[in-house]
């Protein structure tokens, strides 16, 4: 599904350096990335640049991608798991134009995947880089707004406050109700905000074969999880960490054990659940899997479709 680099650099953009940023800025960002890799989970300050898009559109992730991308890379960009949302499309187009790289929607074919709010369902492998767009990198900010104090807390490994937050959750809701940006401890040392991904994706970060890089543009921070790093979600002994579970498979591809989005079908309360990872869903359907909405295994070529409807 790789779309070849059809968008060759346009003449009007020719004055920009490869991947938009100048080489000096890229080197500065690479140094921050290397430091982040050397100290997994530690937030490295960097001199975030203005990008030709507003903050909140992933300028941190874009700068990280710009600093690591080369002409042979194949880029995939997702927003909430989808390749076709405005944000994902425009970032993909940005790099297709400014770096002339190939882009793809297929997770296995990508060498760099920039993401907002999801980790692909397809297991990432060695050599791939996942770049997260991060709005607020500081997990302690919720209870301690002073930056001087949170830095000290990280330095001295004073993380009691993170559990105060989880305690409040249980006191109010009877269980840990945090469902996204769920805090993790990286390599037994730094507590880290995984960006607003659903906690469903937290286990995917643990000992991932891929390199994971996090860029916060407005907050000027970069952090990293090198491959094979321990990433453990915080919890209590009597309230252990759990991921979301869905009581029905994807209505389109019948997939289970994946993260589903709720889609409202009509104004009479009709709704369905479908894969948030659009590429995962499409490839399952291409393999012949069918969900309830598409007629289940009735389809002739859906020999291996999941049967789960007799319940």
């Amino acid at each position, binding site marked *: 599904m790789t779309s070849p680099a059809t968008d060759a650099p346009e003449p009007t953009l020719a004055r920009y350096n490869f991947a938009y940023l100048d080489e000096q800025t890229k080197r500065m960002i690479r140094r921050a990335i290397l430091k982040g890799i050397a100290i997994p989970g530690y937030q490295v300050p960097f001199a975030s640049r203005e990008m030709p898009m507003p903050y909140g559109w992933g300028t941190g992730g874009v700068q990280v991608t710009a600093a690591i991308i080369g002409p042979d890379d194949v880029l995939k960009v997702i927003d909430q798991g989808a390749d076709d949302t405005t944000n994902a499309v425009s970032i993909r187009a940005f790099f297709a134009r400014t770096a002339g790289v190939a882009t793809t929607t297929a997770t296995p074919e990508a060498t760099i995947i920039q993401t907002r709010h999801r980790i692909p369902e397809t297991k990432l492998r060695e050599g791939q880089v996942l770049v997260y767009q991060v709005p607020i990198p500081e997990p302690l900010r919720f*209870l301690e707004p002073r930056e001087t104090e949170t830095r*000290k807390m990280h330095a*001295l*490994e*004073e993380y*009691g*406050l993170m*559990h*105060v937050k989880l*305690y*409040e959750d*249980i*006191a*109010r809701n009877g269980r840990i109700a945090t469902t996204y940006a769920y805090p993790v401890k990286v390599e037994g040392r730094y507590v880290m905000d995984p960006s607003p991904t659903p906690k469903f994706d937290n286990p995917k970060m643990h000992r991932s074969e891929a390199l994971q890089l996090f860029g916060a543009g407005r907050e000027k921070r970069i952090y990293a999880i090198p491959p094979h790093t321990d990433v453990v979600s915080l*919890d*209590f*002994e*009597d*309230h252990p960490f759990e991921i979301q579970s869905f009581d029905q498979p994807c209505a389109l591809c019948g997939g289970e054990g994946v993260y589903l989005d709720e889609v409202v079908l009509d104004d009479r309360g009709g709704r369905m659940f479908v894969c948030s990872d659009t590429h995962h869903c499409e490839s399952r359907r291409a393999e012949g899997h069918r969900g309830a909405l598409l007629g289940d295994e009735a389809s002739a070529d859906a020999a291996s479709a999941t049967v789960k409807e007799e319940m």
Partner: protein
Amino acid sequence: MVSADTLEPSVQPGPPSAEKPLLSVEGLTRVYGKRIGCADVSFELFPGEVLAVVGESGSGKTTLLNCISSRLAPTCGTVHYRMRDGASADIYKMSEAERRYLMRTDWGFVHQNPIDGLRMTVSAGANVGERLMAVGNRHYGNIRRAAIDWLARVEIGEDRVDDQPRTFSGGMRQRLQIARNLVTEPRLVFMDEPTGGLDVSVQARLLDLLRGLVSDLGLAVVVVTHDLAVARLLSDRMIVMKDGRVIEAGLTDRVLDDPRAPYTQLLVSSILQV
């Protein structure tokens, strides 16, 4: 130099002579530019002992308290603390990590204004449980039970455990602050005007409660107050400060009944006239 111990050599208070001081302050001075905060203060505090620091506004009480509780670096002088293993440690030679650990386990600090000592946006239960979580307790049920127990000890009902302190009265907030400090069973608690902002009737109740807790737990306390009645009720010994210096020190009853320094006499008589 005037110190609590040199002034009163014949009547060393309570603790058996074999016992070593918990806190030893020597020649402590803090200046703010040219202004003196406190100057050349020395005293010892024994386990389970309550020391009141009294004096008029601006006499250096808070400066002294902050210096001995490691919250404000002194200009010169030393503060030694006897750790649980019996070793004496210079608190300003410890690493910051060690010092902060001490502050949230073996020490407590009760601020005059509870807002400075509480997290106003989390529940009473979490306020009390925070120190337990900070030292690694990871069992929600146990933390909550401990919080409810401590709320009861400071006369706050279990039904308030999930309420935020901003819904509490001034007296309740102060009691919550006390519970939050005592949950790790510290050996030494610093208090800066703990009854300062409260109504007289609320003050009396809080003082009663504090007195009970201090004796039940065998706490050592340094309490700053400008209220001699608070010193009388809570403390075994007291030091009187003026212009940053200790001008009189001794057993509380002795100082209040038979003040020697002219300034203390004035202070005591002005109170008695009320």
